[in-house]
């Protein structure tokens, strides 16, 4: 056996072992998630949310919604948040030093006045320029904070300092919430009696092409454009299968920054959002979990499969590239900060399973795939490729991917069935067929570019221009 075959064997076996382990994980995730989703659906069918929503005994919640240059849509967005059904609610809009007229529009529309306000410095944040409230009792739930620009994490920290309630719901200001979303999201906190629930996440759905009027979702439609439609499938897989399974194992590392609820007390004890990462949502959950693990306090990060929040997904390759680049950097930064937990039995499921899974199959995946691709090119140049093995192996992986996607679509149909038309389901499945050839390579490439940007110490979020609801697709 010469060195060439040694290299060949090494690469072949490593990639094969990696793929098989990943496939086994996916299989287990798919199987494990179904039981929990089924149990949740049965249990949830008994709850009459309408009768509970007006109860004064439900816990009070503060919604924290950072806004940066949202002048075009801010009034509509705030109206949508204020119209959510929940009795004990405070809506805190944090204007993160917008350069446009976001603040002025809010002042005019909601009859706001600047108040003398003592900001409790419970977690570090940049200076607050002013706190505004309305004298109009209709808008008594609304608090608008104007602050020096400091990024999303900093804006959320200001929100934590301002919030007057024990549970905080962090949300992207342009998200559209289901009417009973808050009650469903807060339920796990007060339903659990054995352990402390520190955070809850719900399913995020893609709102592109949906009919939305006055901040309310009127009709669910499958996105007309390719990229958002592809992301519908991606989100169904991630939320309905992945997060349900990890939540059942109590190994969930990520609550989406677009919509998640947190126990404010633990957030403050952990020091709030960390400014120096672009993956502040994941980093906070990991830090909260680590804090409780290190103190041996029983806890849980919950996840519910209800579609609670609708958001606009990137519809252009440029914006999607920025998003995936940022997600890649955020994951690496978070895992790097908490590397102490890697295969550390002290952290239980978190250290022995969740962290290693994220390390190998979320963080390293773009690198492994990219290296595999480069190796393929080099080896084919030197005539070292066994094309028979390669083609069969490729088909094997692709066919598994299709199975996983088909299973995710079936789960969606069996549970919430948002896309009711048979043609929509077919379109979704057919879009999935293109994933290995178009969407996936694009996402992998921008994940790799995220690595490069991280090495170059790039810290920016990248502008996430949104098309806006009700706008025709470009």
């Amino acid at each position: 056996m010469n060195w060439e075959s040694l290299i060949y064997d090494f690469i072949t076996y490593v990639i094969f072992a990696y793929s098989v382990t990943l496939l086994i994980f996916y299989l287990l995730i798919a199987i494990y998630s179904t039981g929990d989703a089924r149990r949740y659906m049965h249990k949830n069918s008994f709850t009459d949310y309408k009768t509970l929503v007006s109860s004064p005994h439900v816990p009070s919640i503060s919604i924290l919604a950072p806004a940066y240059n949202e002048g075009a849509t801010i009034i509509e967005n705030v109206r949508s948040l204020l119209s959510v059904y929940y009795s004990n609610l405070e809506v805190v809009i944090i204007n993160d030093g917008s350069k446009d007229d976001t603040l002025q529009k809010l002042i005019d529309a909601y009859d706001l006045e600047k108040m003398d306000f003592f900001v409790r410095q419970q977690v570090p944040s940049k200076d607050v320029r002013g706190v505004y409230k309305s004298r109009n009792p209709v808008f008594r739930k609304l608090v608008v904070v104007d602050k020096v620009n400091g990024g999303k994490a900093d804006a959320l920290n200001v929100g934590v300092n301002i919030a007057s309630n024990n549970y905080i719901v962090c949300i992207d200001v342009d998200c559209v919430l289901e009417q009973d979303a808050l009650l469903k999201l807060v339920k796990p906190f007060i339903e659990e009696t054995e352990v402390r629930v520190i955070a809850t996440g719900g399913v995020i759905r893609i709102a592109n092409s949906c009919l939305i009027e006055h901040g309310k979702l009127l009709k669910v439609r499958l996105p007309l454009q390719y990229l958002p439609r592809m992301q519908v499938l991606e989100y169904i897989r991630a939320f309905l299968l992945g997060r349900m399974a990890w939540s059942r194992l109590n190994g969930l590392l990520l609550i989406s920054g677009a919509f998640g609820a947190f126990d404010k007390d633990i957030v403050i004890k952990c020091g709030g959002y960390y400014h120096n990462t672009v993956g502040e949502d994941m980093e906070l959950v990991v830090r909260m979990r680590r804090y409780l693990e290190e103190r041996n306090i029983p806890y849980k990060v919950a996840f519910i499969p209800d579609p609670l929040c609708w958001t606009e997904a990137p519809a252009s390759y440029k914006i999607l590239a920025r998003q995936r680049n940022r997600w890649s950097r955020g994951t690496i930064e978070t895992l790097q900060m908490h590397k102490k937990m890697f295969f550390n039995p002290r952290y239980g499921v978190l250290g022995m399973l969740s962290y290693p899974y994220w390390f190998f199959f979320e963080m390293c995946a773009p690198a492994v795939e990219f290296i595999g691709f480069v190796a393929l090119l080099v080896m084919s140049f030197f005539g070292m490729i066994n094309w028979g093995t390669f083609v069969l192996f490729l088909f094997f992986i692709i066919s598994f991917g299709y199975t996983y996607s088909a299973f995710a679509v079936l789960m969606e149909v069996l549970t919430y069935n948002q896309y009711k038309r048979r043609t929509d389901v077919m379109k979704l499945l057919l879009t999935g067929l293109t994933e290995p050839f178009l969407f996936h390579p694009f996402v992998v490439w921008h994940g790799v570019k995220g690595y490069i940007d991280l090495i170059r110490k790039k810290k920016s979020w990248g502008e996430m221009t949104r098309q806006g609801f009700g706008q025709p697709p470009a």
Partner: protein
Amino acid sequence: MNGTLLYFQSTFKTSFEEYITPELLLNGVLLFTSITLSLVLFTYIYLGLKKKKFLVKDRIRKNLELWISHVILEEDDEEVIRIPSKFIKIFRNPLARQYAIDNLIINKKAFSGMVASNIRNLYQHLGFRKDSLRKLKSRTWYVQAKGIQELSMMDQNDQLIRVYRLTNSKNELVRTEAQTAIIQWAGFNGLRFLDVVSYAISEWQQVQLLVQLKNFTPQDMPKLERWLSSKNSTVIIFALKLVEVYQQFGIRRKVEECLLHQKEPVRRQAINTLLKIGDETSAEILIRAYNDEDYANKISILRALAVFANETHFPFLVAELSNSDDHIKLEAARALGAIGGVGVLDQKAAVQPEPYALIAKHIKAELLL
């Protein structure tokens, strides 16, 4: 097929092929492709069945709704309900029966008085009670819970003893539905399950029970004191909430005893309850408890002091103004503001403007709102 396999076999030249044979990979591809196609087929069969179910439901709805509303609204309570022959056939279908039960439950929630009574009669006359009783006997937790829910919504009070036994079931959903049913049937008297429940009553369930109790005229709760001494801390918390909501001033001393309970959530609820039923003497008791309390309870005590502290408590609150924690500072200032101590805040601000000048302004702005 054999030709393809031979091709792949001839190209495998390394040790890899010893373990991962082309047959294995090809079989894997075929397996996953078959599973994918089966999943897609199943998805479409399911969608088809769902559509069929919807159409059946729609047909039943059209047939039933008019008749049900007529029977509910027009028929006399005592009059014998005649079932049209076409419905006898329809109700042989379990889907139709369940749909009709669900429909009656929705209507029952919306109506009261004679109409509600007619809905109950209709439920019994159509033999749906038997369906609910069958569900009650089921060993599947969600079916059993569904049976309890149906019987409770349809006022089948004769099942009270059977369902009462389930108020301490090991299954959470069965337990909570049974507790809800007992309240539905017996109102405040149904709270007797608090005597026996050994499992925790979640805060969520407590909210549901309180919402449900609002439908009944408040009654004496002679066992309240006993519940406040329960071994189950969640029973104590719920009893404290009952004291708070129904203003049971007579057992204030017992509530004050709960301030010394070993469990922090009990003490916190006791503080919140005292906030609603306490008097000027409660301020002293809370201040005595303050130093031994955790952070969250300290905040709760300061909020309670905003309600019943007086000038004699200024020194305590002024001392807390100097606490290193901003939240405690602000709550102490809020309490001072609420009991007429704005002047004290101004004095503090004059001596030490940073941060007290802003705190004083904040409190004044809040008082103006």
